[in-house]
């Protein structure tokens, strides 16, 4: 592996894509809500880094004028501002997710997303006044459509 391949840009981009990949992997593989939230946080971190890297030039200086000296080449301030915004948005949503997680766990007693989905389905069905479909039931027996019942009557006649 030559060092040409491993120049600064490549390493940084690898970090960004790597973080995103690991984040997505976490979301996909895991069922535990906290793990999924961690995954989203990692994904966001990777996206932020990617955004920041988008116009990064090696050798630029920070976009700040210190003591009135204007540097020859300054880093692009736009992605920095964007990432700043994105980070704050991220933390807002993270706080929201955690609050919801606390509340959901208090209601359902679990953070396993499969469990949560099941309980949610149960709750929706209870509220609507219908039976919860279970996977073992045969499809045709669950609901009799009018068309179906017509057919049955007809075959009896």
């Amino acid at each position, binding site marked *: 592996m030559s060092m040409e391949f491993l120049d600064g*840009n*490549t390493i940084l*981009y690898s970090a960004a*894509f790597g973080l*995103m*990949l690991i984040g*997505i*992997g976490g979301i*996909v*593989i895991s069922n535990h809500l906290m793990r999924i939230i961690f995954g989203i946080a990692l994904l966001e971190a990777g996206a932020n880094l990617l955004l920041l890297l*988008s*116009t990064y*030039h090696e050798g630029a200086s*920070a*976009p*700040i*004028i*210190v*003591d*009135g000296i*204007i540097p020859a080449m*300054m*880093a*692009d*301030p*736009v*992605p*920095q*501002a*964007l990432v*700043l*915004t994105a*980070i*704050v*948005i991220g*933390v*807002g*949503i993270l*706080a*929201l997710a*955690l*609050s*919801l997680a*606390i*509340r959901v*766990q*208090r209601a359902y007693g679990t953070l396993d997303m499969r469990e949560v989905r099941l309980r949610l389905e149960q709750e929706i069905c209870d509220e609507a006044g219908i039976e919860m479909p279970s996977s073992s039931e045969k499809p045709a027996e669950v609901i009799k459509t009018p068309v179906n019942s017509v057919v049955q009557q007809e075959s009896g006649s």
Partner: protein
Amino acid sequence: MRRFTAALFLIGLGVMIAAIYQHMDFSNTALNAGQAINSVAAQETGAANFVTSVVLAYRGIDTLLELTILFTAAMIGGMVLGKRRVDAPRDPDAGFILRTGADLLFPLLLVVGLYIILHGHLTPGGGFQGGVILASAFFLPLLARPGSSINQDVISIVEGLAGATFILIGLLAMSEGYEFLSPLFDKGELGALISAGSLPVLYLAVGIKVGSELAGLLAHLAEAEAVD
């Protein structure tokens, strides 16, 4: 099976990223808006920190929206977590060191936070970073004394007013015939503390708003009832 498919997809994703990678040109960003900003920001806004210029002036509306997101998140957090029951169990009391430390740190954090906010247009840092420090300043005593609580009413007033200030400054610009959120006031001397027109005022509003909202969110989370 689940893990197997997941692995398969991950491999696929990796291939995709590799493909993008191959087609990505890492250095083709000769033209960009950022460089244009760099060349005019000093005259247009008068802030030495160009990131601050972008955050508060060029993309001020983004910042306003971002504050609104925090505001909304804090509000929803309060709504979701609800009011604590009086008889709910509390965390055990913190030790002497934490309490004393919190008392000592509080003024220090307050000062540091405000300093960072007010120098946002000159040096790295600003309303967000300072706001976080302010929030932790107010939150530390809460950690130290689990019985106490932050007055959410005060927080809601403060954050409401701070957010309104931001918008009102924008409307002020409109009343003077500029566009919404145009920089106002005298630009001052580049690099001086009192410079960059209305940006420091905006950043102060941002700082206070971020501080109060994050403190509110933290307090909500801290006050949420624990599961046994």
